[in-house]
């Protein structure tokens, strides 16, 4: 009975499907969906994560075999050629990529997944012919697969381009941006609706034009949507697009009635959504604000101007900057002494460390401090870096044991009993203004309470505000007894610090 109920209305007309395979297929598909879930749950512990990932990839291979068997399409040689080609390119990419490039790698792979779902939607619509034998559900979901797949593709490519520095990291805003976004959205959804009307599909020319229009308009929507997102919101965008690539697959699965595709696609959709939520909470940003392009930067510029005017003009500010630089040079012996006398030290890494490729030096610093008998831990803010958990991977790469990498909630109470905090290339995530400066974009954002420690050593490229655009009170002058500011490239600053450490403490 079940076999007759569960069939694909669009594709069944031409299928080779094994007639008796139905029940077996659904049982095996169910088992594979469960092994995928087991694999994912094994990803929650470092010890089991490698095996969990392996289980997932084996499950995926079996899904492909199961699909080939169920539809009885073993004999199509081109399927193997294309799969092999994709696999080779995939492996090549995975070997070539460097860990700091992980965000754009995920972005681009996401885009490919979206493009594949879009093509699956197009193919299903083409296979539906004049639409007479197909039902509304399959036609509508095919169109939706094109829409979600296409904007995931272009959005991911723009996000990847921004992360890779091919496109400017700053938010690009067109005139009447919101209007264009809405227009592209409505227009692409309109083509989706038209594509689900059999009377329209019966006219081949109309159908072809509509499919092309739907792809282009949805793609435009993705571009308009992603181009407006700026640097600090990038992790959220990547998470969100990750979610959409799963949803696109699930919708394509609905269109061709493939329960495996629906199930796994939905799991990916849920994971992306969850990560997006976590990111938004950690940055104190509302998802809708990011989607609607309420980027933090523009409002902040106005605020900075106000602040500057209030504190008697920009000249004073410039002078203050110079004063602190010379302060830092003199501070050499001071911060070395802090480190010499310290027992507990916490290192806070940020994207500046990654940009400067200073991870090996951070590991050296950790080793030297530990050899001197000091307790060294790391504090990782959830949005440090350009994707969730980015800092952890970068530090794991240079062999920092993962037990030393602590989440914000876990380590925040420890700052009060810490002698020295070393901030390396992080700004917004340690900015105390988040707790006090009402009205600024970071107000209310949970930050690492580095100010609670006895001493703070800050290595930052300059004194400019971070991506959020809010001045950091830690950089104010006159706090030399507590805070040392080392300006410049993180690698150079770390080298200076290591040298000072050896001279004064060795």
């Amino acid at each position: 009975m079940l076999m007759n109920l569960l069939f694909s209305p669009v594709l069944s007309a031409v299928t080779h499907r094994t007639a008796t395979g139905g029940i077996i297929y659904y049982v095996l598909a169910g088992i594979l969906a469960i092994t995928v879930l087991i694999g994912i749950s094994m990803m929650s512990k470092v010890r089991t994560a490698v095996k969990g990932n392996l289980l997932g990839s084996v499950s995926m291979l079996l899904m492909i075999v199961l699909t080939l068997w169920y539809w009885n399409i073993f004999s199509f040689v081109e399927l193997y050629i294309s799969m092999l080609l994709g696999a080779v390119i995939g492996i090549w990419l995975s070997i070539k990529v460097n860990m700091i490039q992980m965000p754009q790698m995920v972005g681009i792979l996401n885009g490919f997944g979206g493009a594949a779902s879009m093509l699956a939607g197009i193919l299903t619509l083409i296979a539906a012919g004049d639409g007479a034998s197909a039902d509304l559900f399959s036609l509508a979901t095919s169109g939706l697969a094109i829409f979600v797949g296409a904007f995931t593709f272009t959005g991911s490519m723009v996000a990847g381009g921004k992360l890779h520095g091919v496109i400017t990291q700053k938010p690009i805003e067109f005139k009447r941006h919101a209007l264009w976004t809405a227009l592209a959205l409505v227009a692409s959804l309109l083509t989706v609706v038209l594509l689900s009307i059999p009377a329209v599909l019966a006219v081949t020319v109309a159908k072809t034009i509509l499919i092309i229009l739907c792809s282009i308009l949805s793609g435009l929507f993705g571009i308009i949507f992603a181009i407006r997102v700026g640097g600090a919101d990038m992790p959220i965008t990547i998470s969100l697009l990750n979610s959409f690539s799963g949803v696109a697959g699930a919708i394509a699965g609905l269109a061709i009635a493939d329960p495996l595709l629906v199930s796994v696609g939905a799991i990916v959709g849920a994971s992306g959504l969850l990560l997006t939520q976590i990111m938004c909470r950690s940055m104190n940003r509302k998802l809708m604000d990011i989607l609607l392009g309420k980027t933090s930067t523009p409002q902040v510029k106005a605020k900075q101007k106000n602040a500057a005017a209030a504190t008697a003009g920009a000249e004073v500010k410039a002078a203050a900057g110079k004063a602190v630089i010379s302060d830092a040079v003199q501070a050499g012996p001071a911060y070395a002494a802090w480190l010499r006398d310290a027992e507990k030290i916490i290192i806070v890494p940020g994207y500046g460390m990654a940009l400067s490729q200073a991870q090996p030096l951070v590991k050296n610093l950790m080793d030297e401090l530990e050899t001197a008998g000091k307790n060294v831990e790391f504090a990782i803010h959830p949005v440090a870096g350009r994707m969730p958990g980015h800092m952890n991977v970068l530090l794991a790469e240079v062999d920092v044991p993962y037990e030393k990498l602590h989440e914000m909630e876990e380590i925040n109470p420890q700052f009060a009993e810490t002698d020295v905090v070393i901030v390396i290339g992080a700004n917004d995530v340690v900015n105390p203004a988040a707790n006090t400066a009402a009205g600024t974009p970071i107000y209310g954002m949970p930050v690492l309470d580095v100010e609670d420690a006895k001493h703070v050593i800050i290595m930052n490229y300059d004194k400019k505000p971070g991506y959020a655009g809010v001045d950091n009170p830690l950089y104010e002058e006159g706090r030399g007894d507590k805070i040392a500011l080392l300006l410049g490239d993180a690698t150079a600053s770390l080298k200076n610090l290591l040298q000072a450490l050896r001279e004064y403490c060795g």
Partner: protein
Amino acid sequence: MGLEHLILIVVFVVSMLVGYKIIDRVPSLLHTPLMSGMNAYSGVTVLGCLTATAVAADMGNTGSRILGFIAIVLAMINVVGGFAVTDRMLRMFHSEDNNKGGK
């Protein structure tokens, strides 16, 4: 909308809820590998591409066959690249004990 569609939608909703529950347990330490792993799973759309391409080949539609070929290549890059890079990343995570044992 038939029973079949209803079942598919139930599959969608249940998978989403179960997935959300399981993924919520992953610590932020592993969020980057989780994300690239999930990224690999999103290439599951290759299943749809395979079926659709076979149908296109059967119908003798050359244009569709070419589109299908491209779709499978893209989806496989997503799957294989995703799993391989996740594996590479996860193998970098070392415990304190392991480090000491290794040196």
